[in-house]
């Protein structure tokens, strides 16, 4: 449809100084697709084909260390859903994502409100401080925290022992504490994202609305509930969607700090996927796990988007 022959046939080859595109007799609709074609082709090559291949793999027993490929239908999905390890990972994912994103949201909104309340002199200073953790790569963050929490040379333990006179917690050796540790690090790194998005939303609220509320004598909680919150609702939704999508795919920090341990206490689905793919070399089951992760992520984010009426 859009071959070179077709384009040549539509070009006015007369002696014109007009730009080539103006001389081509192609509808806007066709032209739009013509411009999109390179990106679509690259996207298809890099994303769509592997995605379809992933779905195809998930219906096969596909060991990465052998040449055998065997159609198993939904067998990989059934095996996963019936396995305690998968259910444990799903539970860990729900806890990790739910608690970390929930706390990030509360702290992030609070910090954004605090940032907005500051004078214009202090705002840039605090904004910079708040944003610093977010600009670190997750791998650097994981390595840094691993050193900070190191039992022999870690600064955090040293401070707890010397300043608080307490025994430091088993940061990575107790299932509960290890989960709390990775959640704490995730909150440290990603709360700034929520701060920035919500802060941008806060800046867009007209000052006149607050002035009217003040004139009516509305208490601060009511102002927050009836003016601020509705006005930043969509921004909060966007922030939560971003964080949920990222949190489901968390890997670096957990891998570096706890390795998914102790046992499998912090083995969220993405860590489990890595182990299935690169330790067990079970390509089919890893693909099935990836598809499940994708579907769950899309379902939850779409639910939030619909729930907030953001379509």
């Amino acid at each position: 449809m859009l071959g070179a022959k077709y384009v040549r046939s539509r070009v006015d080859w007369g002696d014109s100084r007009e730009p080539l595109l103006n001389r081509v007799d192609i509808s806007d609709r066709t032209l739009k697709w013509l411009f999109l074609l390179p990106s679509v082709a690259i996207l298809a090559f890099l994303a769509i084909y592997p995605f379809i291949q992933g779905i195809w793999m998930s219906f096969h027993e596909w060991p990465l260390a052998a040449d055998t490929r065997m159609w198993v239908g939904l067998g990989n999905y059934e095996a996963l859903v019936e396995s305690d390890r998968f259910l444990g990972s799903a539970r860990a994912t729900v806890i990790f994502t739910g608690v970390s994103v929930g706390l990030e949201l509360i702290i992030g909104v609070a910090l954004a409100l605090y940032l907005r309340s500051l004078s214009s002199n202090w705002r840039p200073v605090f904004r910079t401080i708040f944003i610093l953790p977010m600009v670190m790569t997750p791998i650097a963050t994981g390595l840094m925290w691993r050193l900070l929490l190191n039992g022999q040379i870690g600064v955090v333990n040293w401070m707890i022992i010397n300043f608080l006179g307490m025994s430091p917690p088993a940061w990575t050796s107790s299932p509960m504490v290890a989960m709390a540790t990775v959640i704490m690090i995730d909150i440290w790194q990603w709360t700034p994202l929520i701060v920035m998005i919500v802060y941008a939303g806060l800046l867009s609220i007209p000052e006149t609305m607050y002035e009217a509320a003040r004139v009516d004598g509305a208490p601060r909680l009511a102002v927050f509930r009836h003016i601020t919150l509705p006005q930043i609702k969509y921004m909060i939704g966007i922030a939560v969607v971003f964080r949920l999508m990222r949190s489901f795919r968390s890997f670096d920090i957990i891998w570096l700090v706890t390795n998914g341990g102790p046992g499998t206490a912090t083995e969220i689905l993405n860590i489990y996927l890595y182990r299935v793919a690169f330790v067990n070399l079970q390509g089919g089951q890893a693909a099935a796990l990836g598809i499940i992760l994708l579907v769950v992520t899309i379902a939850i984010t779409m639910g939030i988007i619909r729930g907030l009426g953001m379509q």
Partner: protein
Amino acid sequence: MTDNNRNRVSRRRVLQSLGVSAAVGLAGCGGSGGGSTSTQSDAGSGDSTGSGGSDSGLPSQSEAVEEWGQRINEHARQAGIDWEQFEGTSLIFGMNVHPFTSVTEPLLPYFEELTGISVTYNTFPEDQLWQKLTLDLNNESGVFDGMFLGLWPSARYHNAGWAKDLNQYITDSSLTDQDWLALDDWPDSALNAFTYGDGELLSMPFGVEAYGAVAYDVPSLEAVGMDAPSSYPELRDVAKAIHESDDVDRSGIASRASSTTLSSANWATVFKSYDAEWLDYEAQEATLHSDKGIASLEIFAEMMGDYGPSDIGNFDWYRSNQAMGNGDVGMALHTPSAIGPWTQEQIDRTEWLPPLPGPDGSQLASTWEWGLGISQFTENPGAAWLFMQWALSRPMMLLTNTQQWEGQAVYGPARSNWLFEQDEYQELGPKESWNEAHRQGMEMVPSDPPPVPLHTPQNMDIMTEAAIAMNNAVTDSKSASDALGDAASPITEYAKDIPGEYL
């Protein structure tokens, strides 16, 4: 313990750590993410035996490389083969971040001078190396002509047909002078471990390790008035005494005990010495949750959980090595040939014992080997074989096992039948108890069945489950009985998948 911790965590060390943490964080700012930043070195990948000190008067690296490059090539020219038969070839080897890599890499120009073959190392941290190799070999793309091979996953490589049988090159007189190669230098067990199927040799080891030897700090034992342990209950008692002593600022004992596969290695030695078995190979069922298996994990978990550092559940090889090398623990279950950068003071204070006997007197040790193999998909197998012979030659093994330049890392005596007799090794190598623990440890490695199911392609899967169970018990997340009971079911599933030819 609080007092112990207070003393152990010095301000200087904390400040160092704070500086490094900040540097790591700042270095990561604005980066693109990803990259080869993992510092975890899980398998038997040691850094250095630490023989020799920083003020030892050793030459600089460039001086030593020149001397050893010439020495290795002089030795190579004594082989009755044409080293230049593949002149102009270029090779890529997939390598681990490891002392063998860092020591041999500066010498590569001498190999090119000898053969006209250029060799490039593509070096990755261990977990990334396995990924790269898996993808390359699975795609049959042949990017890597040769690669690091570790013992535990190598049956998988054999089953997948990813590595060439080296016998075809050893028996080819145009490629190998067998007298010069001197296969007798390697203990039979070292080569047998890498032999699969119909006598196919997948890899030539440059480092062998016995797991579960005991390193102990002599002054700590003297301070608590106890002798070196001769059984696991005694080891536990000494660990307890050190841990609870007011006179010793150290935790009792350490070992790798994290949930990663190779962290099961030292416990595997305890497990085997308790006469426990991982599998019933005939029935293809897990048996690790037997009474003997549970007893082995109970005592290991008690030692590490109760008398180890507070974050023992996160100890991989690197952390365990660091704890002993820095003087933070009184003892360590460790592998002599893979100790890392210890302080000279700690090296002097440490004595070694071979793996201890179990309740019925069995002394069996788990093992690891690092070697080089040739990719099935390379177009240059002959050139790769020439490189392997050169890189594993006698003088090269002497170099990689003795510190010859300032800051040189040292690793693993694979050609031990020859190496241990060399004056240079005896003079510059590690202390006698180290050698003895290594030698006796290697003699304790069983071959039929091997200490872990390393003759099966499912070994990594099985030992990953075992490692998770061990980690659960050490961190008190589950009892030893429950942890092993829970691991039995997935291990049986993996055991059912073992192809008949490997049973």
